[in-house]
């Protein structure tokens, strides 16, 4: 583990009494390797390592009887601090329905997350509804309807059209008519570089005026997470992230990359295919996972 590596690298620091440039270089190299291995974006790693370097030169390390442990502590603190800043709660509307829009790359887990979110809100005493706004993927509407059925949440769909804006509008009208207090819109997966689809998403956003826009991000996403997040942030200004597939062994460094680059916190995590509530985000836990 990084902790072991850092203890090893800085083991004789106590005897020599102060942190040499060579010791520091070795320690920072281990930290950089651990973060890159965890899929944190290489530019974010550079900035993070620079921040750790500054703190590592301070008295807390050189005066410590266990300098290795001290550096590990600094790394954990800086990471958890970075991940945890900012509120990561859903915003609810003064007047219902609260509108929540999910977006993200193909296959990231949006449809599943929409249903999990609906289930969670239903268990919290809300009366949520789902709107199927992916009109491109074969059987996408079927998929959301089947999930909605499993969790007893109404699903609004508009078949026979490829117009996502129309489907979104229809969903909102239905939610209002049926007195639902939360509407969750599932959208089609799209590439941040597909101008047409990004324009579509902006149009859907403008039509339903969501109180929350959530970017759904796969935990195994690598370096590209930064490019994707920046593009989505620029076009639709998401205010929360749902990181999915955390039940695997991907370290999830993309979480740090997205937070560092957009400032948007992770709101929920998903750790399984089964329809159960999403989990609240735990910054310290995520930091440990990323560090390995």
């Amino acid at each position, binding site marked *: 583990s990084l902790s072991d590596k850092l203890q090893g690298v800085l083991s004789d620091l106590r005897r020599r009494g102060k942190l040499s440039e060579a010791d520091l270089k070795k320690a920072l190299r281990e930290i950089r390797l651990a973060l890159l291995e965890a899929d944190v974006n290489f530019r974010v790693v550079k900035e993070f390592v620079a921040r750790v370097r500054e703190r590592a030169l301070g008295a807390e390390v050189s005066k410590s009887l266990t300098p290795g442990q001290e550096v590990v502590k600094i790394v954990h603190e800086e990471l958890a601090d970075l991940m945890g800043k900012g509120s990561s709660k859903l915003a609810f509307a003064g007047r219902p329905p609260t509108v929540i829009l999910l977006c993200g790359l*193909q296959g990231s887990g949006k449809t599943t997350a929409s249903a999990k979110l609906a289930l969670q809100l239903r268990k919290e005493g809300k009366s949520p509804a789902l709107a199927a706004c992916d009109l491109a993927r*074969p059987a996408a509407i079927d998929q959301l309807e089947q999930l909605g059925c499993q969790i007893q949440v109404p699903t609004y769909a508009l078949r026979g059209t490829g117009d996502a804006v129309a489907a979104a509008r229809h969903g909102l009208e239905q939610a209002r008519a049926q007195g639902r207090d939360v509407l969750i819109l599932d959208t089609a997966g799209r590439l941040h570089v597909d101008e047409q689809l990004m324009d579509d998403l902006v149009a859907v956003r403008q039509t339903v005026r969501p109180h929350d826009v959530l970017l759904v991000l796969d935990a195994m996403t690598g370096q590209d997470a930064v490019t994707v997040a920046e593009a989505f942030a620029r076009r639709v200004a998401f205010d929360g992230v749902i990181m999915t597939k955390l039940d695997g062994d991907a370290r999830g460094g993309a979480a740090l990359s997205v937070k560092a680059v957009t400032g948007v916190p992770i709101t929920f995590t998903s750790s399984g295919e089964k329809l159960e509530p999403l989990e609240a985000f735990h910054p310290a836990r995520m930091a440990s996972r990323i560090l390995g």
Partner: protein
Amino acid sequence: LVGWRYNPDDLDAWEGLEDILIAADCGMATTQEVVEALERRHPRSEEDVSTGLEEIVAALASPRGEPTLDLSARPAVILVVGVNGTGKTTTIGKLASRLAASGRSVIVAAADTYRAAAEEQLEVWARRAGADFVGSSRGGDPAAVAFDAIEAAQARGRDVVIVDTAGRLHTQTNLMEELAKMRRVIAAKLDGAPHETLLVVDATTGQNGVRQARLFDEAVSVTGVVLTKLDGTAKGGAVLAIGNEVGLPVKLVGVGEHLDDLQPFDARDFARALVG
């Protein structure tokens, strides 16, 4: 290589190259290997660097030479596997269409009997590709669907059977065992089958891709990788480590969501895009 100013003493240039490879998801170990291989060639010009990188990267991505599909058996059986959401079902639709265009008759088997609307999704693709469709009731035994599809291919004289499976994480031991069982059922049903076992990997995948490849290969002996979503900005560098450490060649590339968005893997093109 855009912006590369080669000078063997220019450490910044070498660091810049490292950054390009890491940014492409090659990972630290593979990046170091590529850089060392380039150094050993003693490049003297920008041209040498580009050519050198292309050759080194191309070799890593195709560890077994020409990456073609073995369709000599009749029916030839292709098993498609991978973690959740990578593009297995869509790839099967595209592959069925390509095979049909080359004059082969195809059956697709909906052996994802777990996920909501998985069979409906594959059925739409089968229709678009002009392939026969074999499914089962939801929650049925996936191995039985594969068995039924091979049986149907033999009965109807079809050339290829492509088996779609449910997405699963390589860390889910029970699901990996289910996949191993499906492979055994296929092999028992038809000697030599499955003739191809394709692991579908998302180009946005980071270092976890190597883990996926290793465990799926251990469970079902993967014969090739399909790298999907290369139409995005991700470079898919994880396949270099997959080729180098697990020995799996990339055979196909997914470049979009439509029926014709599947291409045979071209190592030189891939290398050029990766370092460019």
